[in-house]
């Protein structure tokens, strides 16, 4: 993992990008370390694709500076930058063979044919494609093979930073899981700086050293996957992580947090501001546990059960509210429909956001 000791390879200072009146990227500042797997994650329309286009050099920022190893590269066009990108559509050249595609960046540098071939074969190997694919037309490759060709082509470029614009989004689930892990392995083996863009925080969690969560053109939070998971700084980030229980709360005059829908009162943590009166309580399904009689904080009835492989998810009705609860499957607490249950959670595992 990249320690923040060395100078950053890429620095963004107060980047703005306007399209007409629309502020697609707003005052984004961040530093990416050499050899890091950095992921920008956000819902569609959050500005992440705009941001990567600025970083690759296909668009220019309206304001702010992009520095590569301390040198300002705002005005350097994409074909002069020592970085390259794997496109969402992969953007393979359909009239070329796999080999010609992979060799293209070397052809642009007028490298001799034997050297190009040697390097292309080496890159195909890194991307787990057999040498026999060298002469195959890309149009004859499957979806997963094309991913590998696109990756090999980008590796052949030997970029200082390799950018990825959601290349795995069109791939089926199982292959995607395989490729995610392979990508992380390749990043470790090559030691290159990878900057990855995705709308899936789950994907980001698997691969990244650090994650930046984007929302409405701004960065909502930057941190390691663990930091983002354990201490999200906003309701948006906490909800973006996946299915969570979000419940409205108010702070009463005595300084206690009241969650009416669960009939629950909690002390207001000292870290939160005293002046705000309402907000939300976010509890992850896996942080809710079934309690023994008399110990539960919340009482409800089992409404439905979903088997998620190694885990089981329950929908628990508490008055008019439905809570999601997730348990490991081997806990022999087989629940029946309409059974009354008591739930508990450790308040420190819950997240309270006041607005």
């Amino acid at each position, binding site marked *: 993992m990249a320690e923040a000791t060395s100078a950053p390879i890429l620095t963004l200072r107060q980047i703005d990008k306007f399209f007409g009146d629309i502020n697609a990227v707003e005052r984004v500042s961040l530093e990416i370390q050499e050899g890091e797997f950095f992921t920008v994650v956000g819902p569609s329309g959050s500005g992440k694709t705009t941001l990567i286009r600025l970083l*690759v050099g296909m668009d220019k920022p309206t304001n702010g500076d992009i520095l590569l190893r301390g040198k300002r590269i705002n005005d350097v066009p994409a*074909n002069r930058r020592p970085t390259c990108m794997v496109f969402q559509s992969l*953007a393979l*050249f359909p*009239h070329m063979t796999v080999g010609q595609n992979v060799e*293209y960046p070397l*052809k642009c540098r007028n490298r001799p044919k034997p050297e190009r071939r040697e390097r292309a074969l080496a890159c195909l190997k890194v991307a787990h494609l057999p040498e026999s694919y060298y002469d195959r037309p890309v149009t004859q490759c499957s979806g997963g093979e094309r991913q590998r060709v696109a990756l090999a082509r980008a590796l052949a470029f030997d970029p200082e930073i390799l950018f990825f614009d959601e290349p795995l989004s069109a791939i089926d689930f199982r292959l995607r899981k395989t490729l995610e892990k392979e990508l992380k392995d390749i990043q470790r083996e090559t030691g290159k700086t990878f900057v990855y863009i995705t709308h899936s925080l789950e994907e980001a969690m698997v691969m990244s050293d650090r994650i930046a969560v984007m929302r409405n053109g701004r960065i909502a939070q930057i941190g390691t996957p663990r930091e983002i998971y354990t201490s999200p700084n906003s309701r948006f980030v906490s909800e973006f992580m996946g299915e969570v229980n979000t419940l409205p709360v108010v702070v009463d005059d005595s300084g206690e947090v009241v969650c009416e829908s669960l009939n629950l009162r909690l002390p207001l943590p000292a870290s939160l501001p005293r002046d705000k009166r309402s907000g939300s309580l976010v509890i992850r399904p896996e942080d809710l546990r079934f309690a023994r009689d008399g110990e539960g904080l919340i009482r409800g009835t089992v409404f439905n059960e979903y088997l998620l492989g190694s885990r089981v998810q329950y929908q628990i009705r508490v008055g008019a509210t439905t809570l999601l609860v997730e348990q490991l499957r081997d806990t022999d607490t087989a629940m029946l429909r309409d059974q009354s249950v008591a739930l508990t959670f450790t308040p420190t595992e819950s997240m309270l956001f006041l607005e």
Partner: protein
Amino acid sequence: MTEHTVPLTGAPVSRRATALTPPPAGVWCALPMILLFLLGFLGPLGMVVLYSFMPRGSFSPIGRPTLENYVDIVAQNFHISFGWSLWLALLSTAILLLVCYPLALAIQRASPGRGILITVLIVAPLFVAENIRLQGWVLFLDKAGVLGGSLQALFGWELDSLVNNVPAIVFGICYIYLPFMLFPMLLGLASVPHDAREAALDLGASRWRLFRDIELPLAAPGILIGSLLCFVISLGAFSEAKFLGKGVIVTIAQDIESAFTFGQNWPRGSALSVLVILIAGVAVFLAMRQVRLENLLGRR
């Protein structure tokens, strides 16, 4: 192909018959076109071929076949007209390639609204008959025409006639056939994926390399079809040489016309036509082979 096509309800086919054995509706639908093609295209073509083997000056398609018309064409100086027509066709196709490529790129990159505006402006002249447009250019370019007259009236410059020469003919051909190059070329360029361009640039390609390695090969089918259209049509160019050239040269189309009219020698006109059709056929054959090759290498 069409076996599975279900006839539309209300078609003049009895319902019961449809239920038992579905008639090949596609064939019925295509029948008018097939008849028109047979009677209107292949029929006359066959007649032309037949006449080209009839004795000189004969008006009947029935007679002892002979090659004397072809011998005449070789013996007399028809190669000059052939030469001019081929040269004009090649030259104008080359000029149109150079003119239309940047134009097509500009249209493609313009905003949709502006692209449509430019397209409409280019298409608009097609609504006026070709001969009238050419006469307009004659009036504009001739001695004391709109251009020369205006220059003389405003600045006192004497301008000689700009028509009655070969460049004027080439200009006319390029002017008339520009859309035939432009639109297939636009289609060709539209089939170049935008992100393939961006990816090439991102991988370090220069503008020139992008053009040579990505744009040209991917747009090749459209460009080739455009060139083919322009070449074949301008091979038969007639009015341009007649109006803008006023007889400085004679194209093969003019020879054919005069053989059928003044010359009253239908077999000779037919033989000349057959030769022109052969040249065009060879061009089409060569070009289509390239297009198929392109498809083989690229998308399938």
